[in-house]
């Protein structure tokens, strides 16, 4: 019979290993705590200094009084990225201001601003007459423009000559016109791409094109979750057609003329290109100091640079 004589030693090994793990953990925690203490010290100290400095400059009456308070904004998801970025920049400049930004859609933006639920509402469409009746105090500020280009593949034989009316476009996207031969191209199915329900770009397209002729997207339309994928799909598919925010229409795709007008920033600015929208901010009554400061910031060159960065058209 074999009796192992090792266990005691093995157990000793295990014990010392456990102990050393415990020791390492303890030392680690200790180092962490000490480092945390030393790092947290200067940080809170810095904060105190800056608070004191602000207080001093306030007492001495130098410069304008610092903006304080909180600002709530909600509305269109199209305007959301602009507002979010502007809010971050604004808060950097005015550390005592807290701006909270939420989505909810244009309709929500109008309603929330009109009822005083939020300080600033946003919409990526014009205010409706019915809304103005419900909320007569609304004051609107334009902060940018957006447009939607209809794109096809450059290799499509019909690409360069296509010039469609809004009605024809609505028929293509609803599936009533479903072959390129009906538009002077090859005898091949038109492969329609669309954005997901709720997308801002889709909303404009629906407002200007689909709802104008009371039609819905064809059931077979392929859903793409971003402007980038819409463009990539058409760039890779000779028989595809899609719509993208104007900033995305580059040379990998061909933007078609709508009612004889090319989709360019100039034509949008001239008001000639038909699918154009203004991005709005609303306040209930004339804006207060803080609201005014924020809207002016968005309209300033710094804010308009953000508008341009996000692929929209500055005013």
């Amino acid at each position, binding site marked *: 019979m074999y009796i192992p004589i090792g266990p005691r030693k093995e157990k000793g090994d295990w*014990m010392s290993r*456990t*102990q050393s*793990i*415990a*020791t390492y*953990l303890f030392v680690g925690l200790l180092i962490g705590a000490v480092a945390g203490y030393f790092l947290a010290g200067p940080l809170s100290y810095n904060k105190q200094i800056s608070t004191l400095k602000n207080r001093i400059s306030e007492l001495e009456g130098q410069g304008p009084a610092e903006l304080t308070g909180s600002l709530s904004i909600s509305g269109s*998801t199209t305007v959301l990225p602009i507002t979010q970025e502007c809010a971050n920049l604004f808060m950097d400049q005015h550390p005592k201001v807290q701006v909270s930004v939420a*989505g*909810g*859609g244009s309709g*929500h933006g109008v309603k929330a601003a009109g009822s005083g639920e939020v300080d600033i509402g946003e919409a990526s469409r014009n205010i409706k007459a019915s809304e103005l009746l419900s909320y007569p105090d609304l004051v609107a500020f334009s902060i940018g423009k957006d447009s939607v280009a209809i794109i096809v593949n450059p290799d499509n034989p019909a690409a360069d000559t296509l010039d469609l009316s809004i009605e024809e476009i609505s028929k293509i996207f609803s599936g009533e016109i479903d072959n390129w031969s009906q538009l002077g191209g090859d005898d091949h199915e038109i*492969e329609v791409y*669309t954005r*997901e*329900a*709720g*997308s*801002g770009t889709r909303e404009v397209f629906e407002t200007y094109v689909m709802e104008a002729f009371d039609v*819905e*997207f*064809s*059931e*077979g*339309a*392929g*859903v*793409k*979750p971003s402007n980038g994928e819409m463009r*990539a799909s058409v760039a*890779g*598919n000779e028989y595809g057609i899609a719509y993208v925010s104007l900033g995305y229409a580059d040379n990998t795709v061909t933007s078609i003329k709508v009612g004889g007008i090319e989709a360019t920033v100039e034509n949008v600015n001239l008001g000639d290109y038909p699918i154009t929208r203004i991005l709005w901010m609303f306040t209930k009554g004339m804006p207060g100091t803080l609201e005014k400061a924020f809207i002016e910031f968005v309209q300033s060159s710094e804010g308009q640079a953000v508008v341009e960065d996000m692929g929209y058209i500055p005013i």
Partner: protein
Amino acid sequence: MRSEDIVSRILFLCASFSAIVVFLITLFMLREGIHALNWDFITGMTWKPGRNLFGIVPTLVGTLTVVTGAIIIATVIGVPSAIYLAEFSPFWLRNIIKSTVEVIVGIPSVVIGFFGLMVLVPFIRDNIGGRGESILAGWVVLAFMILPNVITLTEDSIRAVPRDHKEASLALGATRWQTIRRVVLPSASSGIRAALILGVGRAIGETMAVLMVVGNPEVPWIPTSILDRVRMLTSTLAIEFSYVEWGSQHQYALFAIGVLLFFLVTILNFVATFVIRRRNLK
């Protein structure tokens, strides 16, 4: 002894942390999804958020079609590969093939999806027909992604067959192929089944790669051809979540899809655990 207690408490905290997180996630999804988990959701044939229609059937059928096809392809290619690697291949070759296959696991799924979109989809469109984005493309992409799981796990379970079983069979005069077919594969079968079930679990949860190749029609329908486009449960979530209005029926319906996915994968994991445990009991 005290230090051991401390260590075991710390380890317990770490272990319970992940369990608690899973529990909280489940609770959160159920709380949001419960509002939409109704009969219309489970039996509805139309998914039209704009019209407040949230029928999941075509999407569920699409998901199951894509996953089933992918698992069949992965089995047809993966199991023979595993048999070859475990029983026939020379050691050096096995190392090369196995480590190459395992590289697939490390490829981010969006890269595989991109490859599918740029290479596979145009290939299908030009040579087979349809729009290219199709069930077929989903099969190929998903099969490729679960292949490493199937090969690795199957090979492991073939290797786990005791050597004396094989030797006994060979000693009785059975050929190598007879031994594999009559002795090795039957003893490894529960391991192989577990490998396939885990593969299905992975395939159902996969998002990015399939999202890019299955086409996602505006209103999904029950597919009638392998060139039809479908929606997957995961791709519907990924596409629609970013813009969903919080607190709307649409948001609840998306959470309900999450619950459904969670439910499917959990069942599959339970079945896999059960199959593996039965093997160990044998």
